């Protein structure tokens, strides 16, 4: 590899406008990039910047900082290391360079989100073996199953819009050829829209430049491997001035929680009747399970949602259809006093604080900005909610606070998360000395099935109903004699 250096080439805002321009150019409108509601149910929890967008921005920074000095790129390795949320400002850093090539990193804070290794040299002649199959040009991302991906082949039409491609990445188009930039754009379309499609997670590219460029205006692809253990798809590609392979995972879709009918078999009839329970963040995940536990035991439940109105409506419809009582209220923790006013119009007996920001690993260890984000929700947001509810309650308030087993044994990459939850526990301890509160229950939950814990490997989780039912019952002990 070339010798080490560490040069900041550019600082780039990957904002919504840049994202929208990239979507228009590439056609890759996968919801994980463009839809905040859908993205919140993906492992990233928020819309993320296209990996190929980051890579092309990095190449543009490299080639525009060295105009005229670029040798032909023969090989390109791109590895998508960490998700980069839309709205981030990232640094493009050249970490190595010499006559043989260069290495670029896209960095957000101390995290490397994308890594690019370019090797100079001449392109190779094409093998002449083209992959047969139909041209795929979906307007919306395809929902592919594992079976769909095995044996899949076909083609992606390159945009052929030289003016648009040149306009977006002029220095890169000059250095490696407009057709090859177009080829890279076709690869994000391939992964995000076709294979794996909607539930894709792009991991990387390993490419060799071909001598004849993008002769037929098409990127041909074929599945060469699908490993169900890791839900990993490897596609061979040829076209757009490149030959090589593309790796992507087939993500699991949003986690489906047990139905209220299934939940009700564990709950005693009427054991929660008479309770007015508010579940902050009850439209999905563990909050949804708690809502179903309480409603199936006769409680009058109100669930709040921040973004997922459709999810909240689905939960309400299921509970009401079963015969329970459920209302829905919009509430964003960050909306301040105005948002709080909306949820205290009716006095409550209980609050279950299930709202959470996206929980992600931080492999660099501790990060103050991450801790601050967790504290804002798990302590400040929580404290504001319980204080406002206590002011308007007509009886002592029960509080449920979901903590984590990570407080006792924090994994290295979840220290900030565990610290914030521990701070929430301390605040709960202070509530126990406040006469306005009745039961204040802190439960150090194990990993349970939710969108936050959905991984690639099949993982066995404890039954969420059993774990949470026990916690709900302790939250209700002695309250009006109903539990």
């Amino acid at each position, binding site marked *: 590899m070339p010798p080490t250096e560490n040069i900041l080439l550019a600082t780039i805002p990957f904002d919504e406008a840049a994202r929208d321009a990239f979507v228009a150019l590439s056609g890759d409108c996968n919801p994980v990039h463009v839809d905040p509601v859908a993205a919140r149910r993906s492992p990233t929890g928020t819309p993320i910047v296209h990996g190929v967008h980051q890579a092309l921005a990095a190449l543009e920074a490299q080639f525009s900082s060295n105009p005229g000095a670029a040798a032909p790129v023969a090989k390109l390795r791109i590895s998508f290391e960490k998700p980069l949320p839309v709205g981030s400002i990232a640094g493009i850093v050249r970490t190595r360079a010499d006559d043989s090539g260069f290495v670029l990193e896209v960095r957000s804070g101390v995290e490397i989100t994308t890594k690019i290794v370019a090797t100079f040299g001449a392109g190779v002649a094409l093998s002449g073996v083209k992959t047969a199959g139909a041209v795929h040009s979906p307007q919306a991302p395809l929902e592919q199953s594992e079976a769909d991906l095995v044996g899949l082949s076909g083609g992606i039409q390159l945009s052929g819009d030289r003016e648009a491609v040149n306009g977006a990445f002029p220095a890169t188009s000059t250095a490696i050829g407009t057709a090859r930039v177009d080829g890279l754009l076709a690869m994000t379309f391939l992964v995000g829209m076709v294979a794996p499609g909607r539930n894709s997670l792009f991991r990387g590219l390993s490419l060799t430049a071909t001598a004849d460029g993008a002769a037929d205006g098409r990127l041909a692809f074929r599945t060469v491997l699908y490993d169900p253990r890791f839900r*990993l798809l490897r596609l061979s590609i040829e076209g757009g001035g490149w030959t090589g392979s593309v790796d992507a995972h087939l993500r699991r879709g949003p986690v489906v929680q047990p139905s209220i009918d299934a939940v009700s078999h564990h709950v005693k009839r009427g054991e929660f009747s008479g309770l007015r329970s508010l579940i902050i963040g009850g439209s999905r995940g563990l909050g949804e399970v708690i809502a179903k536990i309480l409603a199936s035991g006769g409680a009058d439940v109100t669930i709040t949602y921040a973004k997922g109105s459709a999810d909240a409506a689905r939960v309400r419809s299921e509970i009401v259809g079963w015969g329970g009582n459920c209302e829905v209220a919009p509430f964003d923790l960050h909306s301040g006093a105005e948002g709080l006013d909306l949820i205290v119009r009716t006095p409550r007996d209980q609050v279950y604080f299930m709202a959470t920001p996206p929980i992600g690993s931080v492999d*660099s260890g501790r990060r103050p900005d991450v801790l601050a984000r967790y504290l804002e929700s798990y302590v400040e947001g929580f404290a504001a909610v319980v204080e406002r509810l206590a002011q308007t309650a007509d009886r002592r308030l029960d509080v449920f606070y979901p903590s984590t087993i990570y407080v006792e044994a924090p994994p290295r990459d979840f220290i900030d998360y565990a610290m914030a939850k521990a701070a929430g526990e301390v605040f709960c301890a202070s509530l126990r000395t406040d006469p306005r509160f009745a039961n204040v229950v802190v439960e150090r939950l194990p990993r349970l099935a939710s969108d936050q814990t959905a991984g690639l490997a099949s993982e066995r989780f404890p039954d969420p109903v059993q774990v949470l039912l026990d916690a709900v019952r302790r939250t209700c002990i002695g309250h009006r004699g109903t539990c």
Partner: protein
Amino acid sequence: MIPEDAIHDAFAEIFADIFLRDDIQISNEISARDVKGWDSFKQIEIIMATEERFAVKLTSAELDGLRKLGDLVRIVAERGRI
């Protein structure tokens, strides 16, 4: 059995290819704690590259039991082929 030195040499190439750096010191004791960026995705890449390089397929129990590189080296030494 494949000699351990040969396995380490191969892993040096595998790690350089996956982490896109050539300064990782290979030993039986290194684990995800020691290499920046060695997350669950990199773990998958390491396993896939190992299986391909040494013509070996890891069982579910073996996958679950991987704690450090030495665990992988032992499996390769016993069942792998170059």
